[in-house]
């Protein structure tokens, strides 16, 4: 990686780590994992299922909140506070700044996911006292969660490159919610006719298909994930993130920093 990008990325990571709100979110995630143990104890015989379900959902949701919360301010906050002036007056290209911010945020989320996943595994060990081969499937769910984060990071950056933090948060959350129901939207489109069909199909394929990344329930039931799905999801996430990131770069390249 270009050294300027890696410096911007590590500074973004440092900012997130020193942000106290981030610690609160991690604390919440750990609390939720603790709650999973509690709920698991109540649900006799299905403790493990509940722990995996609740734990991984917490990892995903808190990660999404962190991604959006930090991502929406990555560019707009720098413009608003004018910290960008002393960065862009150096030999730093605008696209390098955006890409550096993306990697910084993605790195932050990867580290967060690691710690939250550690919480899930600890909770799992607490309820089942041992790990079995099928537990390795949790890594696939975590991998899909990270892929999901990549898309959200890129989208948050895209919105942040032209909009205020508040509007960016609204856009990003809306897209996350709609994207989580993308499969239903596609099914709906298939049932309609005429212009509604065109519009619904267009929207269904334009929004990120987050439902394809949600394998938590099947993994909790120890059902394996097809290799083809892993391959497709990987390609899809990288392509979608790349497109969103390119959009962010394009907008930012021509933006006046008033």
């Amino acid at each position, binding site marked *: 990686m270009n*050294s*300027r990008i890696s*410096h*911007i990325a590590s*500074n973004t990571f*440092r*900012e997130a780590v*020193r*942000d106290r709100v981030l610690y609160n979110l991690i604390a919440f995630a750990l609390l939720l994992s603790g709650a999973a143990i509690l709920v698991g104890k109540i649900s006799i015989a299905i403790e493990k299922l509940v722990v995996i379900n609740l734990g991984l959902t917490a990892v995903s949701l808190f990660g999404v909140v962190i991604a959006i919360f930090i991502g929406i301010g990555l560019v707009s906050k720098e413009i608003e*506070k*004018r*910290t*960008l*002036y*002393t*960065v*862009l*007056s*150096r*030999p*730093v*290209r605008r696209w390098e700044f955006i890409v550096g911010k993306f990697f910084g945020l993605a790195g932050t989320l990867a580290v967060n996911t690691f710690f939250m996943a550690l919480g899930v595994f600890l909770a799992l060990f607490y309820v089942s006292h041992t790990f079995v081969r099928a537990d390795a499937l949790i890594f696939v769910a975590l991998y899909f969660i990270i892929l999901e984060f990549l898309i959200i990071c890129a989208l948050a950056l895209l919105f942040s490159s032209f909009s205020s933090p508040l509007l960016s948060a609204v856009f990003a959350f809306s897209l996350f919610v709609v994207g989580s129901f993308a499969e239903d939207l596609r099914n709906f489109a298939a049932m309609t006719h005429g212009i509604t069909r065109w519009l619904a199909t267009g929207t269904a394929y334009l929004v990120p298909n987050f439902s394809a990344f949600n394998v938590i329930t099947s993994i909790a039931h120890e059902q394996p994930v097809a290799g083809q799905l892993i391959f497709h999801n990987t390609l899809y996430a990288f392509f979608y993130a790349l497109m969103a990131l390119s959009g962010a770069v394009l907008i930012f390249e*021509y933006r*006046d*920093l*008033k």
Partner: protein
Amino acid sequence: MPAIEILGLEKTYSVGFWRKRPKRALYPLQLTVEEGEVFGFLGPNGAGKTTTLKLLMGLVFPTAGSARILGQEWTDPAVKAQIGFLPEQPYFYDYLTAHELLNYYGQLSGMPAKDRNRRVEEVFHQVGLHDVRGIQLRKFSKGMLQRVGIAQAILHDPKIVFFDEPMSGLDPMGRREVRDLMEELKQKGKTVFFSTHILSDAETLCDRVAIIHKGLLRSVGAVEELTSSVQGKVEVIWQGTEIPASIKVLGVECHLSGEHVRAIIAENQQDVFIDVLRRERQRLVSITPVRTSLESYFVEKLRHAETTAGSAV
């Protein structure tokens, strides 16, 4: 080779939410700054000084025109390794310590680790922040942040330094230190381009100044050149204990001081005045052009600009 050549840079912003209307921030600007010069860019608030600096830094895009810095296109990233920039009222990543911030900027400027560490220590001494370099910037006062801003601008030993209102937020001591620093940069052969509305600083420091008002360049030149070009007054001193009646008739205000009389007259009255003194057999001591301060020149220039604009309307 000039250090900075501004070739007709201009900027028009779109303002308004629904019905956008153009607002001219800078009219086509032609300006050349030579290498090693300390150049003052003067103007009242909202004159277009910051817009010009932002255009040169590539933070906003020009509506038309271009610029060359050290002979290269100003948008070339390689140029930026040779320039330093202090924005107006700078704000930095407040979660970083001053040392971390300078280290980060050094990395972005492509400084090798060894040089970077040495320079960071050097500039902290230079701006008087060495003892507080390990403290997070959120605990810094406005004046201290201004010093950090100056430190980051000179960190990579740039050939040209752009300062936007460098004295802003500084106490008299701090202002003095910044003036000394600029002198030091000049002695090292650096080009300093700084915007200010504190004219005494410009008068003390600048080789040349430009005056901008409402986005339009009003004048450029050496301070002496500018101040002597408009006043057109001379001070005449002659020996005497009283003011002759023929001088009084001219309506010139004279001041008696010991055995000398002093009068300030318009330059075009000079010949008539001398003739009168000669006829009165007064002994002339001196005739000296009166030098106006940059401030008087500046005020005069702006007043003239306002009048011209008013009559045009």
